[in-house]
């Protein structure tokens, strides 16, 4: 039998039928949130269709929920349009019998945090969600990707998705990361190398020693950002780290089924000799803590670096892009990253809001205080359970003593759909995944960094190299 990539194995094992290179693939897990689902449920209703398999769905409100006082529940969401969207999700889930972790359930959180946390994301699954960062779940050896609302409706009605097979890219990271360098820095370094369109048309498998050494949290951070490299899916092979993480979680298989599942999961890796359409190689040792300087994740440099000058651009289109980015970001070419001062800090999002991220950031701020020029520093845990765990470990106290605000879980200032946002011109060190114009608030300026780097910037008031920061 020909050697197969992990992507081949996952795709091929879900083909219901195939014609002319277009396949109908079966979906095992469907995650749903309030922003991209209302029109899908409405479409279903209008066409008088039923939900195909309701126990494949897990729903949660996350994008619109407030991160401050939630004591009055959904009725207390100040923005009436946001409130209606959350209410609509509650109503649709009730009507169709969909399992939902409502706003004040301790299990509520960002959809890409709670799936894995609950064991609802398992190796070998196909996972979809009306959200591009669904690539996160590929960390478990699952085929996971974001879909549009029409496809959400399609999956609700048929449990299937019409798909063409992607090409396969291998990103191999060998060696050992330096202390203070994280999965986030690997992700940004890869995007810096391939560009934001480098992975378009591909599913990326991340492999190599440095990837094997990552925790599940780190692997999720990395796969989360596969979409920022243009790839709909990022995948990592199953190993002991994967299996140990899943064991005992609420939705994970139990008893005899567990053993059978593990036996199957152990086969979820690319075969020796499997062919990839593209290979990108990095040495972990060379990766610096990364900071983005512009308005696309590919506009990134090491913290020792400077804002690049126009003569470094590869062509006219990129020169125009960079010129616009200088203006929008209020930066000049050749400014050292360490001289850039910040106004706000955001530690959160489906990229970096898990317990390990909060622990790492807390170590950096412990016993220190945010700089006087930092107007607001937020920590927004990825889920109610992450928050509870962090509080049990006393992390909340460390952050609060350092001048951070400790918030309720949700997407928050990752996309600023709720009240948490940047004012025009404000500059933010953010652990999220997109630095697009206006992403964190109109006119807001986002610099993407790891949790440790965000924490260090909060204390210093400007970007600093966390490797030497004390």
């Amino acid at each position, binding site marked *: 039998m020909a050697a197969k990539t992990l992507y081949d194995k996952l795709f091929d094992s879900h083909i*219901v*039928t195939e014609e*002319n*290179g*277009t396949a*109908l693939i*079966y979906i*095992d897990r469907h995650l749903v949130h309030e*922003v*991209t689902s*209302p*029109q899908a449920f*409405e*479409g279903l209703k209008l*066409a008088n269709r039923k939900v*195909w398999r309701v126990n494949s769905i897990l729903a949660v409100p996350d*994008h*619109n929920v407030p991160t401050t006082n939630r004591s009055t529940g959904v009725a207390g969401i100040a923005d009436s*349009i946001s409130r*209606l*969207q959350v209410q609509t999700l509650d109503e649709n889930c009730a009507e169709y019998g969909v399992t939902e972790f409502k706003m004040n359930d301790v299990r509520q959180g960002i959809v890409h945090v709670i799936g894995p946390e609950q064991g609802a994301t398992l190796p*070998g*699954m196909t996972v979809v969600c*009306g*959200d*591009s960062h669904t690539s996160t779940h590929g960390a478990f050896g699952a085929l996971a990707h*974001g*879909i*549009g*609302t*029409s*496809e959400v409706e*399609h999956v609700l*009605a*048929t*449990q*299937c998705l*019409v798909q*063409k097979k992607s090409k396969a890219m291998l990103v191999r990271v060998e060696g050992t990361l330096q202390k203070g360098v994280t999965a986030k820095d690997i992700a940004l370094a890869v995007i810096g190398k391939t560009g*934001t369109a480098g992975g*378009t048309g591909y599913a990326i498998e991340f492999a190599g020693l440095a990837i094997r050494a990552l925790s599940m949290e780190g692997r999720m951070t990395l796969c989360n950002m596969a979409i920022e490299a*243009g*790839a709909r899916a990022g995948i990592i092979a199953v190993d002991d780290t994967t299996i140990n993480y899943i064991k005992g979680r609420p939705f*994970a*298989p139990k008893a005899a*089924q*567990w053993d*059978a599942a593990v036996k*199957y999961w152990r086969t979820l890796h690319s075969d020796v000799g499997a062919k990839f359409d593209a290979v990108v190689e990095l040495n972990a040792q060379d990766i610096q803590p990364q900071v983005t300087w512009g308005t*696309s994740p590919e506009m990134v440099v090491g913290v020792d670096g400077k804002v690049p000058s126009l003569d470094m651009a590869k062509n006219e*289109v990129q020169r125009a*892009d960079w010129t*616009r980015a200088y203006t929008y970001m209020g930066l000049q070419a050749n400014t050292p990253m360490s001289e850039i001062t910040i106004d706000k800090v955001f530690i959160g999002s489906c990229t970096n809001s898990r317990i390990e991220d909060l622990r790492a950031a807390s170590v950096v701020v412990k016993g220190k205080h945010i700089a006087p020029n930092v107007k607001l520093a937020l920590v927004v845990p990825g889920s109610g359970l992450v928050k509870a765990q962090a509080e049990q470990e006393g992390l909340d106290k460390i952050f609060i003593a350092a001048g951070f605000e400790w918030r309720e879980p949700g997407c928050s200032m990752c*996309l*600023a*759909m709720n009240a948490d946002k940047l004012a025009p011109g404000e500059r933010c060190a953010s652990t999220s995944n*997109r630095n*697009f*114009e206006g992403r964190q608030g*109109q006119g807001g300026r986002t610099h993407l960094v790891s949790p440790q780097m965000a924490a260090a910037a909060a204390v210093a008031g400007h970007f600093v190299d966390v490797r030497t920061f004390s």
Partner: protein
Amino acid sequence: MQAFTRLNGLVAPLDRANVDTDAIIPKQFLKSIKRSGFGPNAFDEWRYLDHGEPGMDNSKRKLNPDFVLNKPRYQGASILLTRENFGCGSSREHAPWALEDFGFKVIVASSFADIFYNNCFKNGMLPIVLPAHAVDALFDAVSGQVGYQLNIDLEKQIVMTPDGKTYTFEVDKVRKHNLLNGLDDIGLTMQQQNKIKAFETKHKLAQPWLFS
């Protein structure tokens, strides 16, 4: 879904690479639970001088005179010409909804982000990938001639310029067929119900834990 066969339309140039979905339709408008009405807020942050929020009367807002789509010569355009990696970022289908509602039926670029590309077809829109040199030539032509139109023929897979020059483009067979005939994906898949059920039975036997 509405069928798409042929279009002869005015072209508007958006000369930027990596136009992301946050730019196409900013997040505050994603709070809507409807599928329509996003057109007035397409490119909101570039298009208006003030900050837009849902529920505002957009006809009273001050337009940014420098934004290309506000120029009188491009009013009524149905073809958007742009650069590489158009539609990168989120999976929000609100992006094609907004462009469609604005009046665009065809988007020509040197490349698209995957999810956006896919979402276009679900809404009767045709995204066309042309080589970068062809896109360059079209940008020159559009700026050089007021009222510049292109003729798009999906059946023949060609883009024709006013002087008769043609560019061919690739499109997946199944997508082409569905778009030409305005077929509804869900309806088509429902015709495969028996196969889905058969797969499900087999899948459940092999991996019962997926179904509990």
